[in-house]
């Protein structure tokens, strides 16, 4: 069923800038999309691999700062006579470096997650994000601290020698975001529906059984963490070159919470869950903007999260799917999924 919905959705998303004139709403869609990419990445780690990582915003911010700093160029006075100078790099290069560095920190966290388990791991991840935030805030020489990195150059897409386009305006940025989002979705989907994805899910569901059949826990935890972090770093890079100003507030715990709410509400461990959650919590603030102050909105989100956890613990997407399947089986149209197993796997993953 979901296969059928996919193409119309894609066409719809591609068409948006054509009919949506309001620049403000387009801006909201772009930032929502960027956050949704981050939510998809968190879902890989939290939803599919079952790691309670609550420091995810650190990867987002590391991607953003790295890309921004490299594209702006910086100098660091390391000693009395020596200043380390980095000239401004092309944006695409800085962006890739942001992804790599975020991925590296994902590797570190992955390694740690194997040693430190459960609630302790949650605390380590939160602490890690806080340390990174405090470094960004205090290492003013490098990051400008609370004064923020500004005038970050936007993306420049080029086919060498033929064509070059700098993405100043919103519409091209929207398509760039969409491209990265679709790519991220496909990466997660391919990973999750493969043998690798099965190993991650096995670890989440029953670790002792998984190891007893030869699944290397550390390897897959680290893999999930690296891919997840790199993807969040990409989202951060997009953010830096779209909004073009980055300050240490990007590392605030509240943004991790936002991503967590998106994933949990949409449905952790499903492919479309973070997208649904992302859209809801990206668009909800806009709808509530006129009737409630930001604090009141957050109170509503907190209440929503509690209600979802109590009544729809698997999230919206599985609940909707179960409801639709309920309708289908009542009509007697249940498809035989037993023998090949393929639709069942897709059902689980999608």
């Amino acid at each position, binding site marked *: 069923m979901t296969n059928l919905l996919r193409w119309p959705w894609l066409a719809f998303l591609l068409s948006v800038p054509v009919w949506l004139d309001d620049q403000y709403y387009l801006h909201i869609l772009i930032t929502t999309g960027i956050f949704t990419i981050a939510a998809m990445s968190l879902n890989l780690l939290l939803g599919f691999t079952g790691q309670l990582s609550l420091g995810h915003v650190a990867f987002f911010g590391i991607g953003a700062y790295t890309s921004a700093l490299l594209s702006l160029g910086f100098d660091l006075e390391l000693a009395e006579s020596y200043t380390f100078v980095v000239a401004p790099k092309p944006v695409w290069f800085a962006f890739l470096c942001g992804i790599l560095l975020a991925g590296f920190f994902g590797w570190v966290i992955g390694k740690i997650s194997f040693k430190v388990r459960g609630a302790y791991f949650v605390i380590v991840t939160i602490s*890690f994000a806080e340390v990174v935030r405090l470094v960004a805030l205090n290492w003013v020489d490098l990051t400008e601290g609370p004064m923020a990195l500004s005038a970050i150059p936007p993306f420049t897409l080029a086919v060498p020698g033929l064509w070059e386009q700098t993405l100043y305006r919103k519409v091209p940025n929207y398509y760039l975001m969409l491209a990265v989002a679709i790519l991220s979705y496909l990466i997660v989907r391919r990973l999750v529906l493969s043998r690798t994805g099965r190993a991650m899910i096995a670890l989440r569901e029953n670790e002792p059984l998984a190891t007893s059949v030869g699944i290397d826990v550390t390897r897959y935890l680290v893999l999930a963490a690296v891919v997840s972090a790199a993807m969040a770093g990409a989202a951060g890079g997009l953010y830096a070159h779209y909004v073009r100003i980055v300050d240490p507030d990007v590392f605030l715990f509240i943004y991790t919470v936002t991503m967590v709410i998106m994933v949990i509400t949409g449905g952790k461990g499903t492919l479309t869950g973070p997208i649904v959650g992302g859209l809801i919590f990206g668009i909800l603030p806009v709808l509530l903007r006129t009737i409630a102050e930001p604090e009141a909105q957050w109170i509503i989100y907190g209440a929503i999260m509690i209600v979802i*956890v109590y009544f729809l613990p698997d999230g919206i997407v599985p609940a909707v799917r179960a409801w639709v399947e309920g309708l289908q089986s009542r009509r007697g149209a249940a498809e035989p999924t037993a023998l090949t197993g393929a639709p069942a796997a897709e059902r689980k993953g999608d």
Partner: protein
Amino acid sequence: MDQLLQHLLNALILGGTYALLGIGLTLIFGIMRVVNFTHGELYALGAYMVYFFAMVLGVNFFLALVVAVLLGIAVGSLIELVLLRRLRDASIDTTMLVMIGAWIIMQNSEQLAWSGVAKSIVTPFPQAPLVLGPVSVSWTRVFVFVVAALLIVATHLLIQRTRLGKAMRATFQDRDTAALMGVNINAVYTATFALGSGLAAAAGALLGPVFVVTPTMGNLAALKAFAIVILGGLGNIKGATAGGFILAFAEEIGAGYVSSGYRDAMGFLLIIIVLLFRPTGLFARAERVG
């Protein structure tokens, strides 16, 4: 040298209140296995209640302190009864998410009620500090230290000498066996959460007059409380007490000799370093309540 002594003295005083924070959380975390994200908000609540009663309503300062702690106990009980009781056997993710939701609601309510402007609380103590040779300390801080120490001792006595404390220790060791022996687990859980929240509120009430009161003051406090719990080991009160002082010393030394901006990072660095080498916490071998 004098500077060092001053730092040590500051750390001693700060450590006492940190210990309160940590003991409260280690009880909740240890006995109930709940990642309590509202702990920092109870801390902030304590501070705001002292501000409200003492500064806005003009109530006697000491009375305001008592009221703040009592309110902390009440709110803690409420959270446990309304939110946590249903989740008794749920997974750790589920309770964690509910606690995050509660934390968001509490913090933003505080923001709405009080606005983001920092509030200060005036204490009835003389302004001139007490000078002890090379070091000086304000009377407020002396009072804070004394009260914190008394509360730590009182908590310790409660856990070791009372029936409730015994029930809590039994539940910590083995919940199912304790239930079979007749311990009322529901009551123990509510009491634990209430006690832990009360201690957090007390820490906030005591530190409110020392620093300023802001709606986000709970965030750092919560993270530090977790650092202390990890240092001391789950459910280990002596460990949490020691952890509180260790953290305070690390912060004071760090702030004094490295950089004041990184003061708050000390706690987190400690967490990460400790857990890397001892994934179950520093004092974890003595992992029991008390």
